[in-house]
């Protein structure tokens, strides 16, 4: 007796793909749901919120002089520094003048960024200049081992930060054949030959790079003088980022001191993300049920749109939970609602998808670059979600077709 065994490879693969995809979908939904972090003790499925990491401090600065232009420039540079470092909220208020003719600035910071580094960004003028050693100072005196650090022991030169277009921090090989970070001073092209002459006059000598009165020595080599670089005393990427910002955010025109700093209560909008997640899920389901009942939309489109929405939000939340990315809870519902609306519009208007998506991504890129406060964070998250939504709309259409075939 012969047994005929019919095996349809295509149908089998279809089944397999649909089963795998369903399993993936269900897993992401389970991980994304609130409180499912309690299903496993081995893996953490907690949504990390930024709320407990917020701190707020008021810094009071005293600026020498009352020139309004200097004041505005100082405010601009401090704003630039704080924005580049990703400080969520920074307000710089002009408090007027004191009796001694100094200008007072009040800076209020509310952020989750490193407290010490934010303080460094505010309290340092970062006045960079190149100096030569004073001949009458004994830098080898064992009784004064720190003589080389203080700017008073050096003669000023005409060279300062304004002669360099950029100071680039990168890893370079040291004489020990190890890698360390250096700040490379890149000159304006019109100053290059003059600087070469200056360096040529000091071959084999120690120069000093003064930053706010503290000097880093630089031994001018005899042979290759094409790179002017001083060591950066850290390998921590966040500290290097802060140093890079201090070097490259503009030249503060006046001296200033940090007079006082007071801790404040960080006033942030705290949202119970579990309650909000339940709220969003209920509102999404209710909206789709209502749309299906009033028959304003085609049922097939509603199915595709609903599946794409659930998938997009689930994958996004799952990624946040697994990768332990901290998030501002109040931004979550805003992003979710906008993506619900976007997916619904994209599913209904096949003819407009490319225009809507390109218009949105282009606009959000501009907003990300030029926005202030939480606006760039919202824009970045929305760009990610739009791309994810696009993928999920395609996958949902494909999945529904495959299920129908089976």
């Amino acid at each position, binding site marked *: 007796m012969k047994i005929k065994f019919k095996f349809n490879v295509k149908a089998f693969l279809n089944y397999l793909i649909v089963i795998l995809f369903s399993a993936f979908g269900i897993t992401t939904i389970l991980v994304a749901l609130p409180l499912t972090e309690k299903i496993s003790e081995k893996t953490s499925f907690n949504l990390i919120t930024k709320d407990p990491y917020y701190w707020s401090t008021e810094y009071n600065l005293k600026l020498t002089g009352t020139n309004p232009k200097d004041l*505005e420039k100082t*405010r*601009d*540079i*401090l*704003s*630039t520094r704080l*924005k580049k470092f990703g400080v969520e909220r920074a*307000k*710089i*208020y002009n408090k007027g003048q004191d009796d001694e003719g100094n200008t007072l600035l009040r800076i209020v910071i509310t952020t989750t960024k490193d407290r010490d580094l934010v303080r460094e960004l505010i309290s340092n003028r970062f006045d960079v200049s190149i100096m030569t050693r004073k001949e009458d100072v004994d830098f080898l005196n064992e009784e004064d081992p720190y003589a080389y650090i203080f700017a008073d022991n050096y003669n000023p030169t005409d060279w300062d930060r304004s002669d360099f277009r950029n100071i680039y921090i990168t890893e370079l090989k040291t004489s020990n054949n190890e890698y360390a970070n250096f700040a490379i001073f890149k000159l304006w092209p019109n100053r290059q030959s003059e600087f070469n002459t200056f360096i040529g006059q000091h071959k084999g000598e120690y120069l000093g790079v003064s930053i706010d009165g503290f000097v880093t020595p630089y031994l001018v080599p005899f042979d290759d003088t094409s790179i002017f670089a001083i060591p950066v005393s850290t390998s921590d990427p966040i500290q290097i980022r802060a140093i890079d910002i201090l070097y490259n955010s503009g030249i503060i025109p006046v001296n200033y001191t940090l007079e006082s700093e007071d801790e404040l209560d960080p006033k942030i*909008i705290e*949202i119970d993300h579990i*309650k*909000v997640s*339940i*709220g969003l899920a*209920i*509102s*999404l389901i*209710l*909206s789709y049920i*209502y*749309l299906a009942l*009033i028959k*304003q939309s085609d049922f097939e489109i509603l199915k595709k749109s609903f599946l794409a929405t659930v998938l997009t939000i689930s994958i996004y939340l799952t990624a946040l939970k697994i990768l332990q990315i901290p998030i501002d809870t*109040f931004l979550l*519902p*805003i992003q979710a*609602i*906008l993506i*619900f*609306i*976007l997916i*619904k*519009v994209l599913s*209904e*208007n096949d*003819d*407009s*998808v*490319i*225009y*809507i998506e*390109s*218009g*949105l991504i*282009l*606009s959000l890129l*501009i*907003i990300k670059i*030029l*926005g*202030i*406060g*939480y*606006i760039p964070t*919202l*824009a970045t998250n*929305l760009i990610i979600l739009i791309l994810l939504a696009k993928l999920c709309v395609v996958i949902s259409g494909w999945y529904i077709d495959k299920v129908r075939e089976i």
Partner: protein
Amino acid sequence: MNIFLSLWQNWSNYEKISILMMFSLLLIILLVLIKLITNNKKLVFFSIISLIVSAILTIIFIWLLNVVFSITITYIFLLTPVILLFINILSIGTSVGYYSLHSKGKNFSMQSLKREYVKDSIQFSIFILLLFSSFSVFLSSTFLIFILITAILSLIIIWINYIILYQLIK
């Protein structure tokens, strides 16, 4: 107007220039895109008015909230213009997409664009209304006010867009 003056004075030049550049660039780039896609003066004009009106409405609403209802305008309200721009791009984008695909067809008329826009706007409004209203039940205080204002403004902008389109295409 004290609220806007104080906001403006407390911003550094860097922040003022960034925000002005952001909105100017958005306006220019979106209009150039619409011009390139549709090459239709009426649609470009419709988009200019729509974007400007949504900006003015946002300012008026925030002012009303502060002056009439004595609600403190916190940092979160800075997100309202971005959300409204998002909604506006969706609203304008549907008509631009419909026009670019159907404008060369035999049966196309600007009246059909108007009909399509009404259909889209009704669906859009129902969805926004349902979503925001059912979600609002779970919120309180400042965030609730922010969500409600943003929802109301979104709906107003969708229907102001319809009025503008209706006036331009008669």
